[in-house]
């Protein structure tokens, strides 16, 4: 049984088909990359799964259980966490408090939530900044904090919406290492990413959306040579580059 299953998920905004008939599944332990041009409906799909949008039609199943149209907090409780494309840290709270808010989901007592949060801050390398206000962090650390906060809810499935956008090469490297470490801890990961150099070596499988539709679902190697994907998203330059390798 797949961990996450989408069947014919469609999301319509007035006349716009943001997602159309998307069917895909994510297996336990996978790292799945979700790519596609701007406006392809990647974030909309995230929102349909995590409860921020209700799909117009279609079914979302998690661990075999239908969760279509559940509210975001219920989705989180069932074991799916997410980060946001535009960071949404709790600005006037400290780094530790941010992560504690996440940890409270599984640890209702403040001292337990605190212990869990400190553990995660250690793991994500934010421990030295635990008393800083979240608004004073750099963009890279804000993204890291969002990830830490999501991890504190102890998810089985983690959605990362452009977790590496806007990071410099060394910060990106750290983020990639982090994703690998999470994967080793049995957390299944779906990431939206624009940086091909990041996605290709990291993902076990790549799913491509274009104009709301799923146009490819394959291994990174085969995606890189898929005619339709090159045409829709990667572009001719990418074909040339992959040939020269």
């Amino acid at each position, binding site marked *: 049984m797949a961990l996450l299953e989408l069947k014919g998920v469609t999301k319509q905004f007035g006349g716009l088909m943001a997602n159309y008939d998307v069917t895909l599944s994510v297996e336990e332990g996978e790292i799945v990359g979700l790519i596609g041009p701007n406006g392809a409906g990647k974030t909309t799909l995230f929102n349909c799964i995590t409860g921020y949008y209700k799909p117009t039609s279609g079914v979302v199943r998690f661990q075999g259980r239908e969760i279509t149209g559940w509210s*975001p907090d219920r989705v989180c409780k069932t074991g799916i966490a997410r980060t946001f494309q535009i960071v949404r*840290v*709790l600005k006037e709270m400290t780094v530790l408090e941010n992560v504690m*808010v996440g940890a409270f989901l599984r640890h*209702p007592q403040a001292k337990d939530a605190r212990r869990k949060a400190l553990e995660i801050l250690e793991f994500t390398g934010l421990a030295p900044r635990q008393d800083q206000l979240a608004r004073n962090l750099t963009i890279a650390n804000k993204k890291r904090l969002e990830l830490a906060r999501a991890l504190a809810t102890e998810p089985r499935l983690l959605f990362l919406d452009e977790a590496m956008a806007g990071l410099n090469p060394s910060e990106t490297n750290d983020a990639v290492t982090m994703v690998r470490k999470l994967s080793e801890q049995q957390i299944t990961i779906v990431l939206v990413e624009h940086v091909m150099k990041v996605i290709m070596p990291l993902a076990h499988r790549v799913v491509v959306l274009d104009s709301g539709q799923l146009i490819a679902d394959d291994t990174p190697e085969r995606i890189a040579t898929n005619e339709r994907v090159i045409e829709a998203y990667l572009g001719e330059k990418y074909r040339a580059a992959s040939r020269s390798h």
Partner: protein
Amino acid sequence: MRTSRWQIPALLALILFLIAFPYLFTQPFLQRTMILIIMWSVLGLAWNFLGGYAGQVSFGHAIFFGLGAYTSTYLFTEYGISPWLGMIAGAVVAVIVSAIIGWPSFRLAGHYFAIATIAAGEIFAIIFRNWKTVGGAVGIYIPIVRGDKLIDFQFHDSKIGYYYIILAMLGLAALTTYALERNRIGYYLKAIREDPDAARSLGINVTLYKMYAMALSAAFTAIVGTFYAQFVLYISPNTVFALNISIQMALVAILGGTGTLAGPIIGAAVLIPMAEYTRVYLGGRAGGLHLVVYGLLIMIISVYQPGGLMAIYKQWRQKETARKMQQVTDAAAAGKEG
């Protein structure tokens, strides 16, 4: 905020001062002013649960104040039920009404919630003005009970009984705030204030927690409503369901600093004496002048210091800490050179 060495002794001194106050200052005007300061501190703390921690600005809290006042007064005048029991009944009524108002209006974001609460407040004022069973626009006089017994919730020879009751309520509200800040609910409310969508992604049922905050806020406000009724011994829609009360509750908390324990108390300590003195000294010649002062205060706070007086204090402490650190490093540098 970390507690510094002098904070705990200062707090103890303040508590002792508050307990000794009625014996140190025996003039009725001072005692009355102090009772009002404490009463508005409790109201500010009550408003703060919803408006400060959860960030849902309400201008309709007179609803709960009025419900507290009317419930205990009606039960006492009609059925002879003790105002102490009436106070609990009033809190229960306020909590139920808060859920009825909160459930639909928490779907509204930001300013629209504030507008909805103003509308709800006016609806209650109109209902009570026209509700003959509870005295209509005339209101209800509470029959005087002599003897100054605590059980009667009435004191005539001296105001000291009222003073200690409201002081106990302040203690309860302060302890509740202190506990909330260290508890899951407090963290969740702050998260909702900072970013409701992020809060949802962390498993927080935003509407439910806003309703918890409003229920807590309503219960404390209603309890003070009963206190006010027993203190003044006369209530009417124009005094207890007034928009003025809603605004002053918000203002006390905002002036002092929302989302903090000390803020609403400081706010009341600054605002209430000012209101009382302007009322007494200028009341005859320039009625309503204190309202002009309120308006100016709101403008000044929102332009220069949205964090209130507490934020000014925090900034001063940060500077002070930085200055001391600088001194230490300077001294170390000087030591090395020498």
